[in-house]
């Protein structure tokens, strides 16, 4: 078996274990309020981390002003209550147009 397939299978196993751990071990128990408060805030924290790192890339090597402009278009149009899909399409359109310049 090639290293590629070994890597794919290992990542699949690790991913399964990571997702299984919380549900299997914590189970049906209610968490204490403080822990629940932190967990409720994991969503905004990790989403902000995902967006920022995807934009900046390793060591800020990937940062691209056309992407920043596209993200602004997505954010502003969403705040103006445009549907999600429309916002993503507008963001891609804005970035594509700016790259034409």
């Amino acid at each position, binding site marked *: 078996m090639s290293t590629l397939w070994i890597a794919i299978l290992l990542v699949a196993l690790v991913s399964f274990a990571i*997702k299984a751990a919380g*549900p*299997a071990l914590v189970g049906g128990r209610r968490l204490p309020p403080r822990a629940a408060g932190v967990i409720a805030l994991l969503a905004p924290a990790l989403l902000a981390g995902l967006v920022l790192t995807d934009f900046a890339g390793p060591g800020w090597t990937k940062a691209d002003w*056309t992407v920043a402009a596209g993200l602004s278009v997505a954010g502003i149009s969403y705040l103006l209550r445009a549907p999600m899909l429309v916002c993503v399409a507008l963001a891609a359109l804005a970035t594509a147009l700016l790259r034409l310049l």
Partner: protein
Amino acid sequence: MATTEIGYAAGVRVGLAVGVPTFVMGVTFGAMAHSLGWGTLAPVACSLLVFSGSAQFALATSLAGGGGVALAVGAAAMVNARFLPMGVAVASDLKGGRLRRAFEGQAVVDASWAAAHQGNGRYDREKLISATLVQAPLWIGGTLVGALTAPSDEIIHRFALDMVFPAFFLLLLIDEMRESVQARWVAAFAAALAATLTLVVPVGLAIVGSGAAALLGLRAGPGAPR
């Protein structure tokens, strides 16, 4: 995304709404893996078995960087480490014994998890599962299309297909930030953490580190968020 809508049907709507970006991201992954010499079967098998875009991109990037299997698996694991706290978060809303909950926990992917959040750390199990079931064939099918058609980096860049992923996650973030002032502070702190960390540690670790911003929640008494 209206978090007040609940149940399987609401999840299907979520899955369809994120279906286009999911499909496009799948195409992007398939094309990238193909250009790295993975062929056609391996990218599709990877999407089916790993089923996590960010981990798969980390794996492919890392393997292409020549760091070997251990480093590549480590990088993908770090990127996916966020599913550990996400899994803990949904745990009490899943059904059945340990084994069944372990399998239901596989439905945790970013978009479904964020959309299934009902506030105060409660999750809509049916919405979570059905949203993921709708995304799965689109993700795997997109990968197949990408590996078969293999669009060039230049085409991906020109049509701004690389915008789809960050724009989509930004919208999910805005949904979360609408929940409370505290959520906005946490998001700002997490962004600052990630911006700094990505200068010194791998991207996967920077994402995990940004999760530390949620510790601001310790200052709140019971039921304070929202």
